[in-house]
Structure formats: structure tokens, C-alpha cells
């Protein structure tokens, strides 16, 4: 018995009988909010999907399904932080939280594709293992302790100036200008932005700290 399209059943008069039955038994498993006619067994008949394979068995949640890329508040174009191929990435944000990072099909370099690391970028941002609090270890201490950010930066600035003063070299033994400190060094830059590298190089060079290095060397 192949029922015609959904809803055009001509058993209108049976509907209230069915509702009565439903009210009576109070039995309505997961489709409680929907009418008795949504019960898959009934839908197997109404939609003709007798074997209960497709439209007869879909749940409310399935019918309302939508990808989080479509329900995101905004999409931002970005670049993968891992290797130097520079694959384009699209970052989907909802309620000020990154919900998805995937390839950017517009990129002529990567054409929307990503490697395993690039695909794990969302977990890099949202991983529970990520450290978001400042930590401080006092000399000879065996444990970390918490510190607020402003104090930490202040302490670093003090130590920077103090070390610079203690290890300053104005001239070499032949009286040639040096104007530098060998007491401060830095390592890192290949994972940073050009603008960040620029400020670091500008600040350290002005301060005389020549030992700035990064992964390009190793």
C-alpha cells in the first residue's frame, strides 16, 4: 500500500481518533513534542518508505541539521601557523569563540587543502592543554606560582634594565665603539609575524642586545 505524498492522506477523520489514542496511552517516546502522525511506524505508511530507511525515520534534530560553518557569526581569512607553505585558512567564530578552522578554497597556494597539523589548528587554539595564565618560578623554588600579567612585565622590564647596565660594553680593547650588552639574548621569531619581529629587532638593537636569534639558524 503505497501512501501518496506526505500529509495528503485522506484519513482526516482518523486524526482526532489518533490524538485521542495518544493522549490515552501517554506513550510517545522521543517524538513527544510532535504529533502521533510523526511516529515513524505511521510515517512508514504515509511516506511509502515501508522498510523505514529514509524519510520515515528522521528525527526532529536530523531534519533541522546545519553545519556550524553556516551558523557562525563571522568568517575571518587567516594563514596556517605551522610550516612555510602558507596555506590559507578560514576561521569561523561564534559567540566570540573559534568554532572551526578549515582550508581557504580561494588560496592559489593551497586551494582549500590542509595537512594534519593545519587541520588541527582549531585544537591548537581551543586545546585544554594550552596555558593561559602567567606562571612564575622564584630562584631555587620547586613549583610554579601564579603572578598577574602587569607585575610580570614590570619585573621583566626591571631585570632588563638592570642586566643591561651590569653587562654594558661601550668600546672594545682597541677603543672602537661597541655600544652593546652581551648579557641579554633572545631566541625565537620564525613563528612570529613580521611586525612582531620588527618591534623585537628594533627594541633589542636600540637597547644594544645583539644576541637576537631564531629558528632560521637551527
Amino acid at each position: 500500500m503505497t501512501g501518496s505524498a506526505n500529509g495528503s492522506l485522506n484519513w482526516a477523520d482518523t486524526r482526532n481518533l489518533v490524538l485521542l489514542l495518544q493522549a490515552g496511552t501517554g506513550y510517545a517516546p522521543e517524538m513527544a513534542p510532535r504529533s502521533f502522525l510523526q511516529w515513524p511506524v505511521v510515517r512508514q505508511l504515509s511516506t511509502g518508505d515501508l522498510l523505514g530507511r529514509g524519510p520515515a525515520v528522521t528525527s526532529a534534530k536530523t531534519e533541522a541539521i546545519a553545519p556550524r560553518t553556516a551558523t557562525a557569526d563571522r568568517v575571518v581569512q587567516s594563514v596556517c601557523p605551522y610550516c612555510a607553505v602558507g596555506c590559507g585558512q578560514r576561521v569561523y567564530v561564534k559567540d566570540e569563540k573559534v568554532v572551526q578552522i578549515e582550508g581557504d578554497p580561494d588560496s592559489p597556494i593551497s586551494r582549500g587543502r590542509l595537512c594534519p597539523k593545519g587541520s588541527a589548528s582549531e585544537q591548537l587554539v581551543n586545546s585544554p592543554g594550552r596555558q593561559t595564565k602567567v606562571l612564575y618560578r622564584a630562584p631555587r623554588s620547586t613549583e610554579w606560582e601564579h603572578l598577574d600579567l602587569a607585575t610580570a612585565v614590570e619585573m621583566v622590564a626591571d631585570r632588563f634594565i638592570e642586566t643591561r647596565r651590569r653587562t654594558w660594553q661601550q668600546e672594545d680593547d682597541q677603543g672602537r665603539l661597541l655600544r652593546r650588552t652581551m648579557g641579554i639574548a633572545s631566541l625565537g621569531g620564525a613563528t612570529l609575524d613580521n611586525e612582531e619581529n620588527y618591534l623585537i629587532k628594533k627594541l633589542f638593537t636600540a637597547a644594544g642586545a645583539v644576541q637576537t636569534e631564531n629558528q632560521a639558524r637551527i
Partner: protein
Amino acid sequence: MANADCIVIQGSNMAECHPVGFQWVAEAKARGAKVIHIDPRFTRTSAVSDKHIPIRAGSDVVLLGALINYVIANDLWFKEYVTAYTNAATLVHSDYRDAEDLGGLFSGFDPEKRAYDTSSWGYAEEGEGPIGSPGSEHEHGADASARAAADTFGSGGPPLEHAEVQRDETLQDPRTVFQIVKRHYARYTPEMVRDMCGIKVEDFEYLARTITENSGRDRTTCFAYAVGWTQHSLGAQFIRAAAVLQLLLGNVGRPGSGIMALRGHASIQGSTDIPTLFNLLPGYLPMPSAGRHDSFEKYIAAIGSKQQKGFWADADAYTISLLKAWWGDAANEANDWAYDYLPRLTGAHGTYETVMGMLADEVEGYFLLGQNPAVGSAHGRMQRLGMSHLKWLVVRDLNLIESATWWKDGPEIESGELRTEDIETEVFFLPAATHVEKAGSFTQTQRLLQWRHQAVAPPGDCQSELQFFFELGQRIREKLAGSEDERDRPLLDLTWDYPTDEHGDPDAEAVLAEINGRHLAGPDAGKPLSAYTELRPDGTTAAGCWIYTGVYANGFNHAANRKPGQEQGPAAPEWGWAWPANRRILYNRASADPAGKPWSERKKYIWWDQEQGKWVGDDVPDFPVDRAPGSNPHPSVGGPAALGGDDPFIMQADGKGWLFAPKGLVDGPLPTHYEAQESPVANALYPQQQSPARLVFPRADNLSAPSGGASGADIYPYVFTTYRLTEHHTAGGMSRWLPYLSELQPEMFCEVSPELAAERGLEPYGWATIISPRSAIEAKVLVTDRMRPLAVGGHTVHQIGLPYHWGVGSNAVVSGDAANDLLGVALDPNVQIQESKVASCDIRPGRRPRGKQLLDLVADYQARAGLTTETSNQAVTDPAAEGIEPASGEDGRPDGGTG
């Protein structure tokens, strides 16, 4: 690479380390290109290549030299290209002695200084002396070799006094570069390749035939390399050898040609363009050195003379613009544009020298900015012990990497060498923002700047480096505000006023605008510059990095251009912005013949349009756009104006591609095979075993294994090489904290051949301990046919593969021993990179001992091998055979002549 007809991947494992870039190799392969992977291991790149050729780690120059020899001997080199565009026809000065004459050394080697005086390698000149470097007329040999040390050069084009060279267009004169190259590689034969690299002769034939069949007018071959070439004590010469081969075959500056550097990090190219490196200023200008650049004039002259050809002649404009950008009005003509505000170098201050400085208590403060040296740098133990000498350490990262927690759970705590309670170092861990929590630009491996927009604000205490260093700079300037001390002037006069948003985060685009540069005077003062040709040496322009000028042209951010790739041609110029001047293939003038016509219809790229009187094509021409092919200005004019119509290499001092490098390299004008710092094989080509100019650090904590069959070499009989896996990222800071990546490759392992496993009784997927002269680590054993024993130098050499992503710590999802602990410190003299791709070790089944017994095991091996600080550290292997008598001064060594 997609346009290549043959792609040779050597010194790289592209499918694993640059998987998405590899789609273009797959594209080429689908169109019928041949892909050949030359690597000690059969890797995932080899799995999809047409041919994998196993090679003994460290013997690349023998193979490339043999290819050069094959190309010349069989007359397969690209004649018109080589004669017109390279310095093949240029004559070299008569003082020059080749490695063939001096048993592996070149002329000008000073054993005490362990460096060359490169003046004897200069071009011949009308007069009798070689064309020297500008500003070097009256220098002694000793100073010359000191000057030759890498730290005096920016990595830009090495300078020449002038470009009036002698040439023999017939290439017959024995002093022409061509004949010198031919003679230099005459003994690099297929049989030599078989004996030194372990490559079968038929494999070599296949490789040579495939490359030469796919070169010339109609077809191009492309090489791709990564740290597999660079991380050697002879690294720069590996790449030079490929450059010589590609120049001979005409494979430079053309679509599907060239030597593709596959760089490792998101913006490692950016971090050398705007370098947080000790020897460079932005735009590859050299950092001034005491004794060499004591005055502004000397500094400018050292970079490039006004008479040499090419754009380096305008170095004054670039430098002054940089100084104006940094110090604004405080930089004026009177004080040489504040040149004396710049600190001076007194030698090489690379990261390894710095760590040795820490061990000598010379360094008090250390910033780690997204780098994990405790696992990523060579000689991990020295890195961690060095940090224990610091007064304060600031680590800025996303996760609690091993370099931040070594004082608590590092290997030295476990082995008892360090006690947490005795470590004085103060450690600050400041959480950093990820790439989606800050705006900024990355420069990827094709010099393309791509802008990232900020998606969300950083969580918790996380800050971007931009904000942290801006704030640190502000606090330091506030604390020094009242200072009258002259040393603080550079900090106080710094231009440091960037607009900030409500969170205090400086506006990255303002910084990019400063990098791009702007006019300071004249009608359009304050407006951004649009090309580096607009830079002036009179202080009317400011530019933070001259090669990036143009990224902010007309006031909007070209790095943020996002015209979809599908709507553009293959070069896709409107996606991001490539330095310099948005060119995508450098030296692309060479894609046309001397008359300006494309070499072939198939490989058309840039050509001369007679009517319009300018160069046109698919890319921004890398050539003065209106310079006719036939034009031949007199070289004495100097600078860009002196570039002839057939000088595609506009950055070289003579406008030509250098087969022979008279300047710029400190360990030889021509790539010459030397064995690695530690190698079980003797150098069969020359008496000289290792590279004479390599930088070694003879220290008790940096011993090397005996090499070349010396006594004790059998204690560390096997060769090991380190490499990456596609599932992890360098020292693991961004992958071993992620469950999804950690479960793909959870444990440290070593890859060994079945023969080695049988020889040492290693059980598949069981444990093994690997011992080197520096340390011992444990790893699971992967017995696989992908590792092949090679017959080299008359005996079988086993190679062991070690991924280096794991580190000892308790914070990551997965941890393990660090392969880099096994490595010593031996550096390439040109760029100070460490040798991590080949070293000697022993391997035995079972887990490594814990605690103190680990140190005993390493010490026991050192004793049995009889290691001293001198082992493998000699500069000259056999002074007699190499024409070097330490005492006397006969001809082999020009002593102190103006040379």
C-alpha cells in the same frame, strides 16, 4: 613547480614536511613529469615518486659534482644560456689555486685562523691584482681572512670594486670559470658516486639522463631542498652545487625551474627578511662589525661599491631610510643618520655561541619567543645546562614547553646533574596569543606576505608578541626617561608611538606601514612609498625594510589582497604580496634569450615587447622594465644603470649567475666534497677529510667521534640522521600538546634496516638505546626495508633514522627522549647552522639506564673511543699533502701579499 618536467627532491622530505605544497608536485606528475627523491630513507615522498635513490647522509656534493661533470663531459649544458647569463666566460686571477692542486684546499687558507683569505679567488683585472672588495686596498692576510668571516656580510650580493671583468667568450682559456669548473669536477665520476654515496651506477645514469633530458629550451627541471641540505657543516656548498648544476642546464629564472627552498616555519622567511638574527638588519643589510664598519662610509662601501652593477649599489639609500624609520628626526646628516646608535658585532654571536656564553656566566637574561631549544636545538643537554646558568628566563609560548620546565622535570634532573633546589634561574612563563588571536603578516617560502586578520581576542593573560614588546619598550623608556646617560639615547630617541586599540594591542598595520616606508619631505610627505626604487639617500624617505617597500603602496595593505586564485592566472599576483615588488619568479629575465625572445613557446614567461619598448609577460619583470635586450652600458656607470640587456642577475655585482663565486662564501668558491664532522668513511676525493673552514668548538662537553677510519671510529660505527614527521611540528610545542596529533605518532622511535636489526639483535617495536659522544637516548624500534645499508668506502654503512619531535617533560600529551640530545655543535662557517643531518652513534637493544648510570654509559663509550677535545677537530687533515707547511711560507700560502 607545477610547470616542471622533472622534479628532483633532495635534502627534503616534501610530502611529509610540506604536504599541501606537494600538491603541485603531484600536479606536475599527473602531467607526466618525473619525480625523483634522493634521501637516505624511503619516506612518504619516495612512496609517490617515480624513483627513490638512497644516498649516504652527507655525500650530496659528490652526487651533484658528478652530475656537473656528466653535463659538461657529455656537452649537455645549455650553451647560449651559460655564455650569456653566467660568469662562465669570466677569467679568474692567476693567484687562484684549485682544490685539485692543494689536496682539497683552495688558495688562501690560514690554518691558525681556520679561515680563507678570499682575495686570491677574485676575477682577473686589467692590471695584475684580482678585483678585490671595495674598501680593502691595504689589508693584511690576517685581516682579510677575518673580514671574510661570515658575520661581515649581509647575505645580500657580495660586493666587487667594479664590474670590468676580462672574459673569453670561447671559454677555452684555462683561467675561465668554465674550465676551472670542468677541471674541478673531473674526478667526480659515477664510480666515485658509487663508492662515496652508495648509489648504484645505473641509478646515477637514470638520474643524470632524466635531468638532462628535461632541461634546455623546451623543458625545465626543478630542484627542491630543505634542511636536509642546510643542516650540514658544508650546507651552503650543497645548495651552491645545485645552483651551479642548474645554471649549467639553464634552469634558473624560468617557469618550472630553479631551486625551491622549502622553509620550515610559518614565517621563517619573514624572520630572515626582518631578522631577529644577530648578523642582519632588515633587508639583508649587515649588522655593523667593530673594526670593519667603524664609520658610516666604511659600512656603505663594504656593502656595495657605486661602480658595481646591480641594486646593492644603492645600499646607502636603504640604510639611511632604515635609520630614519627607527630614529626619525634624531637621525640626520650631522650624526651620520644616527649610525652610531647601532651596536657593533665583534665576531659570530649565533645561538650556539650565546649558549656557550651562558655556560661561562656571561649571559644573564634570555627570552624564548615561540622556540623550544631544550628539544629543538642541537646538543639539548648544553642548552638546558646553559639555561641553568641564567639569572632570569622569559618564555613566551602557547604551552608549557620543555624549555620552560627543564628545571622541574628535565633529563638532567632525572640524571642527577641538576637539582631543582640549586637552580638559581628565575623563570617567567607568559602565555602567548595564537595566530587567530592577533593580526599580522606571515612571509611564506615563496617570499609571499599574507595578512592574517584577528578572529577573536586572546583568552586569559595571553598577549601577542606585538603587545608584549610594545609594552616592554614603553616601560623601559619610561624608566629611562630622565637618563642623561649617552648609552640610553638610542632607546629614548626611538620612534615607538604606535596607535593601540582598546585592549592596548598596537595596530599591526601601522607597523607594516612603517616597514613599507613613507616620504618624509617633498610634495607627498607622509604618503607611503610604492617601490624601493623611490628610496633616497638624503633622509627624505624612511623605510623599515627596503625589500618590503611596496607592500603598503597607496596606503592599503597588499598583504591582505585576497582575490580568489580561481579568478587569476597561475602567478596569482593579487593574492598577498611577494617581495621584492610582487615578483613571483626571481631573475625571470633569464626566461628569455639574449635577444628578448622566449627560449620556447612552452616555457614562455617574460619577453621583450618591441612596440611598447618594455618587458612584458605573466609576472612582474625582475629587470629594469625599459632596459632593451641589446643595451650594453659601460660598466663604470655602476648601479642598476650599469646592468646590460643580458644581465638577468640584477642583484649580482656583475649581473651574471655565479658558477664560480669569487666573493660571498668563506669555505670555497666552488662546492667541494668534504666528509661531515663525524663520518665513518674517509674522503676518497682529497686528503682533506672535513671542511677546513667549518666552525668547531673543542670543549669537554662537545666531544666528536673519530672519523674516516681513525682509531676508535668502530665504537660509534653507525650513521644517524634526524628528521621530521608530518604529524608533528619541530620541537613538538604545537603538536605534542594536541591529542589529535599526539595519537597519530605517540612514541619516539628509530628506523633501522632488517640487516642492522639482525646485527644488533633489535626486536621490532621493542626498545633500543642510541649512544653518541654527547648523550644516550631510548626509542622504540621500527625495523623496515625503507632503511638500506649502503656499501660505501669499501665497507657497509648502516644508517639510523631518528625523528626529533619528542622531549622529556611531564606536561605534553606525549613525551619521549629528544634526538637532538645526541648531536654536537659543529657549524657551517657561512651561516652558523649546526650539523644535525649526519653524525655517528651506536645502537643496542633495551631501554637506556636511568639516573647516574646514563652518564656513566656515555662516559664509558667516550673512554673506549679515546675521545679528546682534539678528535675530529683538526682543520687540515694532512698538511704535507695539502701544500701547507705550518712553519715555512712557500707558494701554497700567499702570506700577507696584497693578494
